[in-house]
């Protein structure tokens, strides 16, 4: 499978996810989320896992989308206008770029990582981690993710 397919499908996935999360109209968000789940199912199917791909499409593009649509219809779309502030969108855009760059550097230790990333000073460490201590790295990532969840929880409690 060529890289173009992976790049194109990743771009579609990211764009649909961003539009779904930051659109002001809930109907647009729902449609984009539907396309996002469809794209992910197509990726699974393209890379040889037809059952998982079909299950993903049936579950998320089918059942969950209909469930969400039903919930929105019960509540009423006019009451669900979502206004994302420009500063929040800008902050999240910057965060997203930082995450992409950081994960690119971190994951460069994987076999098949790019030569550009492999020339970075920390690449040797990440190569060692990926090749000899992958489960430790996974645990490290889990700890980091759980700490982010705690930070999010603190943010959400700030307003009360």
């Amino acid at each position, binding site marked *: 499978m060529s890289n173009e397919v992976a790049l194109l499908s990743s771009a579609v*996935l990211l764009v649909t996810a961003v539009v*779904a999360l930051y659109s002001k109209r809930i109907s647009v968000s729902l449609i984009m989320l539907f396309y996002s789940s469809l794209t992910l199912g197509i990726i699974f199917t393209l890379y040889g*896992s037809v059952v998982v791909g079909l299950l993903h499409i049936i579950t*998320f593009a089918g059942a969950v989308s209909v469930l969400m649509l039903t919930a929105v219809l019960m509540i009423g779309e006019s009451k669900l206008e979502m206004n994302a502030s420009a500063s929040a969108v800008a902050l*999240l855009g910057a965060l*997203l770029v930082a995450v992409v760059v950081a994960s690119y550097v971190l994951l460069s230790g994987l076999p098949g990582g790019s030569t550009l990333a492999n020339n970075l000073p920390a690449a040797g460490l990440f190569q060692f981690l*990926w090749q000899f201590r992958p489960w430790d790295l996974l645990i490290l990532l889990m700890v980091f993710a759980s700490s982010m969840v705690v930070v999010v929880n603190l943010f959400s409690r700030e307003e009360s």
Partner: protein
Amino acid sequence: MVSDQLIYFVTATAMVFLGLGAMSFSRNLIKTIMSFQVMVFGVNLGLFSSSFGSTSAPALGPLLSYSLVFFSIIVGASVEAVGLAIIVAVYRKYGTLNPSEIRRLRH
């Protein structure tokens, strides 16, 4: 040459953090569920792409990877279904989907 695995890992990480960030700034419970769904997509993509590794890669085997994605799909969909049911019930009781407003009305 960048491998497909690297591209999908980076995309998966970006999606997880995108969902996490949107969840932290969200003032609408439906949007919170959508952010959760994007996070689940990211996790599924990451688990799936971990089966791409070459013979020397410390990746999961395809069978384990597909099983984990399967499990993640089932759990993610169930959580979203329960979450949406709770959201509808909360809206009927409080008339709003803003978490801080709901917290204020509860007291």
